[in-house]
């Protein structure tokens, strides 16, 4: 891929004033690079986030393409590798750390130790639970943003943010994957996670500056 000379100021010229220099200094961890993770990552890259830590053990299959930010040409590749290429196609200067491995309660905190916040983007509810429990034990002062209830279609009004402590849940809180996953609703929740991440990162920085 040939990269054109890139002017960061021009790339983020339409960003919300004041966000670009702040977000460029921030690190977000994303646990899982499927529907939620890949879409949230692309939105954060476009928002001007400087650093992403991505982890997923899986490779891309055709059945992923109905909702995940991958293409036919990506099939068979590690999700982390393909997503990194797509993110750099948006912003060649984005800094990435990739982990093509299975996340576990044993390695989670180490992999995301430098992240300012974590976006949870797993498929299985059991995995979401151990991630929240592990994060709350080891990094309780940092937010974790969980996707919870994104299946089906329609029902925009049911998608919301529920906060308890430093755990934020984005979704309708009730729909199960067995209903089927449809791109618009997955993308709404993923972008709600990304949007909340930007808000929390900006709030953190504003709070730091006020002290």
């Amino acid at each position, binding site marked *: 891929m040939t990269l054109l000379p890139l002017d960061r100021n021009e790339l983020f010229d339409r960003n919300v004033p004041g966000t670009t220099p702040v977000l460029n200094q921030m690190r977000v961890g994303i646990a*899982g690079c*499927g*529907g*939620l*993770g890949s879409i949230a990552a692309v939105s954060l890259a476009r928002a001007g986030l400087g650093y992403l830590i991505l982890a997923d053990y899986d490779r891309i299959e055709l059945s992923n393409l109905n909702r995940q930010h991958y293409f036919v040409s990506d099939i068979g590749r590690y999700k982390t590798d393909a997503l990194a290429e797509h993110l750099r196609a948006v912003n060649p200067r984005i800094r990435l750390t990739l982990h093509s491995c299975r996340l576990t309660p044993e390695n989670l905190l180490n992999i995301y130790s430098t992240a300012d916040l974590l976006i*949870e*983007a*797993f*498929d*299985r*509810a*059991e995995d*979401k*639970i151990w991630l*929240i*429990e592990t994060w*709350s034990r080891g990094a309780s002062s940092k937010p974790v943003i969980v*996707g*919870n*209830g*994104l*299946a089906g279609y329609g029902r925009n009004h049911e998608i919301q943010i*529920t906060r*308890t*402590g430093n*755990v934020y*849940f984005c*979704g309708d*809180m*009730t*729909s*199960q*994957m*067995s209903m089927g*996953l449809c791109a618009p609703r*997955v993308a709404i929740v993923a972008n709600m996670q990304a949007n909340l991440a930007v808000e929390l990162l900006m709030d953190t920085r504003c709070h730091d500056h006020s002290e």
Partner: protein
Amino acid sequence: MITVNNRDELSWHDGMTVQDILDVMGYTYVLIMVTVNGVLVHSEDYSGTKVPDEADVRVIHIMHGG
């Protein structure tokens, strides 16, 4: 009085635990997360965690999908 999920109210009694609340409310779905006044209670601690009067308890069902 205990408030559960900003909606239901339960009478509080001395020694009341998270597990007591789950039993009274009839929660049988195992994929849940519980917080008491914003603090996460781990599943192995449900029976040993006492809930103070006036507590804000959240029981959140965790859904598959991502």
